[in-house]
């Protein structure tokens, strides 16, 4: 990263990494939780592009609310169904909800999330279900 690639420096770095890994292994603090990377790469890229557009849209919406004189807040706390199977896809969905300003995942349960919305409108759950379907398209197989 620093642009210096002397064998001595790289060797020191590799050595300390190995020592740290060994010590942590001896301490038995690594949980036996392996995350399978069950994602479709091309669809993942498509999803990212879509997510960026969503983030931009909702940012502008929240900015308008902040700058409006009377701040038209209409808060709600509701459940959103979550149909993903793997934990990784669930995490992606929850983080996507939080990343788009205006909605935040507050609590996660097995098949639904509790979502808090800043300016709730009646078609918000449908939008979240659309996002859910998109994340589901990214997910490939995994544990049933």
């Amino acid at each position: 990263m620093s642009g210096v690639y002397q064998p001595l420096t790289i060797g020191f770095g590799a050595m300390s990494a190995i020592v740290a890994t060994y010590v942590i292994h001896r301490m038995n603090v690594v949980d036996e939780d392996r995350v399978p990377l069950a994602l479709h790469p091309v669809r993942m890229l498509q999803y990212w592009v879509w997510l960026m557009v969503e983030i931009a849209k909702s940012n502008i919406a929240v900015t308008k609310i902040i700058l409006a004189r009377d701040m038209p807040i209409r808060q709600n706390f509701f459940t959103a169904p979550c149909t993903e199977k793997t934990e990784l896809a669930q995490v992606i969905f929850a983080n996507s909800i939080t990343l788009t300003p205006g909605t935040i995942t507050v609590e996660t349960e097995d098949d639904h999330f509790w979502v808090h919305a800043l300016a709730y409108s009646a078609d918000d759950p449908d939008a979240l279900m659309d996002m859910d379907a998109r994340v589901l398209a990214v997910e490939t197989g995994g544990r049933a």
Partner: protein
Amino acid sequence: MIETLINIALFAMLITTAFAIVRMDHLFGVVMLSGVFSLLSAMLFVTLDAVDVAFTEAAVGAGISTVLMLGTIALTARREKRVNNRTFVPMLVCVVTGAVLIYGTLDMPNFGDPNAPAQIHVAPAYLNDSIEEIDVPNVVTSILASYRGYDTMGETAVVFTAGIGVMLILSGLRHRRHSLRQRLRLESRRRRKLAKRGQT
């Protein structure tokens, strides 16, 4: 010019944060504010080109010390105890010490003065020779790990010992607390049993 303004702005925020820390009696707020204080001072170190110090500040100030202070609060109280002592003598001591320290800085060379003693004697030698002698790209690293290797080792040993001491003390506390909790649980179970017996 621009950097001076940035430094002034950062210093102003730093002082504001310091006053806020002193004024606040809510200890969680104090921990949060001191985290921000360390972030601000790290920014200041970066603008003053002391990148290595900023690195240390990041690891120690913002990371570990916040966690340590929270652990301390978990073991003690959440609010500052109000003390109504007379504040005149401590104030006097602080003012006098501060004045003496400021008087001491009057003799020091200006910031970045090329003729300052620190710049003339060892620094050029380190800067010129460390690449040939030690062959480590970062001069500060070569000073700490090689020219002053024993010094650094001693410091590390001291910190390590302190850490072990703290861990020993805290683990003892947790053990005692745990047994207290177990005792409470047993007590409530016994009471429930007694109540049930009373009903039947």
